């Protein structure tokens, strides 16, 4: 009566369909990888011709996507190694974590020229050098928060879990796999999602740029976009935007959503808050009979293997107990020595570059810094102005906040520089000066971090405080000053810190813009860095990047850290 026969039959067809779909997807993936691998051997060519027809876009998109994934794999490997070492060695930690903090803050785009020249020198004949340079640039935009998250998770593993691992004589590898990775999977998945999104930001620059008069270009959606912008081809710009959005959505639905659902099983807390995440892909996979069979076969094979080779663990355990820490220590010392040597060499190089910058140029850099700082403040101000009221109103409704989250996430993943020409074109119609336009362009990317955090903060306003405000008739402006603004303050600060970092970095591409064959620029640190790159003026480039890094670290240490402390002490909701 409950499960009728025809329903059973249609369910069987459904399962068959799912299995065929999965086989098809798998085949496509394999052939895609094979094709991509072939591209790397293509001979190096400066200024690859980019085909602006929409038909060429899917191919370009896949190429860019493969670079993003390669960079992500690199980030993941770096994260696992760096995070593990930093969490296990007290001495290494003291150097590695501040280093990570600085790495997160500095404008990575400034390193592109040096990296490209080095890589092209290493691989003069094939595209490998350029590809690697592009991948490393994407990597530098992805890696920081992943490593921070992994390190943070490792540090917060309950001591009992480590004790269980020791009492049961887990090998080093088993402990890493079952305790450390399991404890950090959730944070790692969320941060991977953010990182992958952040990695696209400079795609238009990473795939196509000029350096000292030479034009370097890789086929991809980023260079498609930059060529379209250069020529002022609005239709091509539009198609590139569509392709980019589709790619972001596809990666989110096919990869991240399922991973988020899967990672839920690693949650240590036993109480679940709110409804668990869902993914249609996971639902499909769970319905697949083929996968279930494969899983069963795999499980049986493993069991059989385990029976065939009964517990031969002791020697391995002994190795782990004694040798692993020694190996780790040797590794740490070696790594420490190597990085010291590298620092010394780099420092010497740096000084020799900086002495070539004269006092007048330093003065110009300082003025440019102030100008860009003003623009950043303006961009953040604009972001706060609209995201706080809108975010609070929407975030207070659980329905709307749930509906909007994926939209905001997609918007935040979209590389804002791709929209710069359209926005600039529109604003120029109203005769807005380009100095102001640049600030608005910086705001474009930064606003989403603020909105995202305000939404999260507004949905975390405790129900009883809301109810108390109702009972005591705290309405209108009083409601904002007593309840909403203080509640979201910690979230707002977190959002602003991320947005500020993004805005500073964005100034490099926002303050100078090639639009319809015409270069627009406004005075600022971003412009100086871009121009130095273009002219191959390495002393000025180095000085510019250094100035921006210095300003960022200084702002973090003073303004942001103070606000953060205020948020944590006074406005924390942990009562």
């Amino acid at each position, binding site marked *: 009566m*409950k499960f009728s026969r025809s329903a059973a039959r249609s369910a069987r067809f459904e399962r068959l369909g799912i299995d065929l779909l999965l086989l098809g997807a798998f085949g496509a993936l394999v052939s895609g990888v094979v094709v991509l691998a072939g591209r790397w051997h293509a001979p190096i060519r400066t200024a690859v011709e980019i085909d602006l027809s929409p038909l060429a876009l899917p191919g370009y998109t896949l190429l860019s996507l493969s670079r993003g994934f390669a960079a992500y794999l690199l980030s993941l490997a770096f994260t696992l190694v760096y995070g593990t070492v930093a969490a296990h060695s007290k001495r290494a930690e003291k150097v590695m974590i501040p280093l990570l903090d600085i790495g997160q803050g500095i404008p990575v785009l400034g390193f592109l020229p040096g990296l490209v020249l080095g890589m092209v020198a290493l691989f003069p004949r094939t595209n490998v050098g350029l590809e690697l340079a592009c991948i490393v640039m994407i990597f530098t935009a992805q890696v920081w928060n992943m490593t921070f998250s992994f390190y943070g998770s490792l540090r917060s593993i309950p001591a009992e879990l480590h004790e269980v691992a020791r009492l049961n004589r887990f090998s080093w590898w088993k402990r890493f796999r079952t305790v450390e990775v399991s404890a950090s999977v959730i944070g790692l998945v969320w941060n991977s999602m953010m990182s992958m999104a952040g990695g696209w930001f400079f795609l238009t620059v990473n795939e196509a740029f000029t350096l000292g008069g030479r034009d370097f270009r890789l086929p991809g959606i980023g260079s498609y976009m930059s060529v379209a912008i250069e020529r002022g081809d609005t239709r091509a710009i539009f198609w590139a935007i569509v392709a980019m959005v589709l790619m972001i959505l596809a990666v989110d639905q096919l990869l991240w959503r399922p991973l988020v659902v899967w990672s839920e099983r690693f949650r240590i807390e036993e109480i679940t808050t709110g409804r668990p995440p869902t993914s249609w892909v996971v639902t499909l996979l*769970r319905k697949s009979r083929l996968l279930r069979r494969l899983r069963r076969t795999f499980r049986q094979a493993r069991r059989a293997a385990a029976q065939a080779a009964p517990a031969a663990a002791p020697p391995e355990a002994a190795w782990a107990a004694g040798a692993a820490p020694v190996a780790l220590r040797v590794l740490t010392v070696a790594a420490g020595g190597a990085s010291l040597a590298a620092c010394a060499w780099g420092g010497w190089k740096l000084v020799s570059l900086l002495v070539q910058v004269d006092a007048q140029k330093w003065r110009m850099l300082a003025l440019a810094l102030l100008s860009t700082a003003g623009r950043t403040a303006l961009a953040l101000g604009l972001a706060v102005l609209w995201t706080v009221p809108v975010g609070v109103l929407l975030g207070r409704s659980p329905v709307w906040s749930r509906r909007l989250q994926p939209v905001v996430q997609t918007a935040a993943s979209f590389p804002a520089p791709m929209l710069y020409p359209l926005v600039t074109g529109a604003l120029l119609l109203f005769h807005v000066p380009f100095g102001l336009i640049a600030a608005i362009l910086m705001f474009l990317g930064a606003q989403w971090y603020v909105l995202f955090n305000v939404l999260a903060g507004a949905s975390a306003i405790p129900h*009883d405080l809301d*109810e108390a*405000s109702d009972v*005591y008739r705290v*309405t209108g402006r009083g409601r904002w000053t*007593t309840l909403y603004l203080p509640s979201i303050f910690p979230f707002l600060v977190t959002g602003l810190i991320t947005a500020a970092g993004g805005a500073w970095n964005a100034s490099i591409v926002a303050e100078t813009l090639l639009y319809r064959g015409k270069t627009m620029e406004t005075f600022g640190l971003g412009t100086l860095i871009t121009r130095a790159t273009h002219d191959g003026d390495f002393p000025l480039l180095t000085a510019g990047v250094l100035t921006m890094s210095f300003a960022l670290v200084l702002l973090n240490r003073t303004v942001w850290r103070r606000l953060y402390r205020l948020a944590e002490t006074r406005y924390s909701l942990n009562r």
Partner: protein
Amino acid sequence: MPNESNPAPEEAIAAVRGVDKTFLDETGRERVILKGVDFTVRKGEVVVVLGPSGCGKSTLLRVLIGLIPPTRGTVTQHGRPLEGLHPSAAVVFQNFALFPWLSVEENVRVGLTGRPFGAEEGTARVKAAIDRVGLAGNERSMPKELSGGMKQRVGIARALVSGPELLCMDEPFSALDVLTAELLRSEVYRLWSDRSTGLSSVVLITHIIEEAVFLGDRIVVLGANPGTVKQEIPNPLPHPREYRDPGFQRIVDRIHDVLTGVHLPEEPAGSARAETAVLPLPPASVGEMFGLLEILADHGGEMDLFAIDAMTDWDFGRTISVVKGAELLDFVDTPKNRVLLTDAGRALVAASPSDRRPLLRRQLLRLGTFTTLVRELAKTPDEPRRGEEVRALLGTLLPGEHPVPLLQTVINWGRRAQLFDYDVATDELSLYAGASSDDTLA
């Protein structure tokens, strides 16, 4: 409730008539929280609403003062229909609901928002309210510096600062330790009886029987699923009340009886119920039921329900659920307020942990809910069923029950008896894979 159902309207500070309240739960089904509730707060009384968790007593309070609208029925204040919030009611919350970024003084001042007091009188009132709850000197403290008891004093001061007629307290002492709660209870009585604040009546929501008898002039017992008024018990004991006073105990016992009647209705003698009838399962775990059986066995196989309640740290509703579950499985019998170990229960206590499994399984397979489920799962032995399918099935079997907690109970019982396997990660239920040949389907 016969003689109290129709007070003169001007006497009623707040009242609800024939109120229903329904919510949509997470599965999109309508859940009836309150059903046909009549409730009145009169001038100059402390009325306590008592009931197990989930009976909708907090919802009743919120409907009464206009925080949420009823689905059906009328809400009045002083005999007039209530529009918006009750004009002279204040609320003390279970978890204090203090603004963490405001000082004690500022938090208390929140209670004056929108009230027509001048700056000077406002300040004087805030100071007086803080004095009255014994927090003088702490005006500038932040909530996180205060203990739980002190936080609740701030909550009370905030409620009293505007001089309300009606004070509503939603489980105000349950987030506090036992001693602090005791102290605050006496103080609340003192604040109410000292009429200088203009406070006329108090509505107190609680699940603790002694608290209800200590403070209430009238105790309204609510039953759960859906929440309805079971009985109103007047409490004429003079203040100060003493827990060990025989009169106090008599009223406690009377409430016990009412709650028992609500939860464990007497069955027709001879256990005429059909063996395989599909009955709802109370939310009790196998571990708790086995614990109950052990306690009974240690006390000669027979105990008073309230003695059991006093021995465990469960609240009364939980005790009732566990006893009901054990009774459903025929491990205990409950004539009146007694709980007796049956032969099946004795056999289970005597059995080793591994022998308990088949015993439990045999009892489970006498329940219609389990036989139906096992039969359904056996149709496709190597296809697990998704949770939503099973919940839908349970929904058709037991339309009045909430399928989500019901399935949780089914899983808890069925897993322990090795009837089912359940994978939390995939939310899939299947027959136990390694089922021994003994007695899967007798």
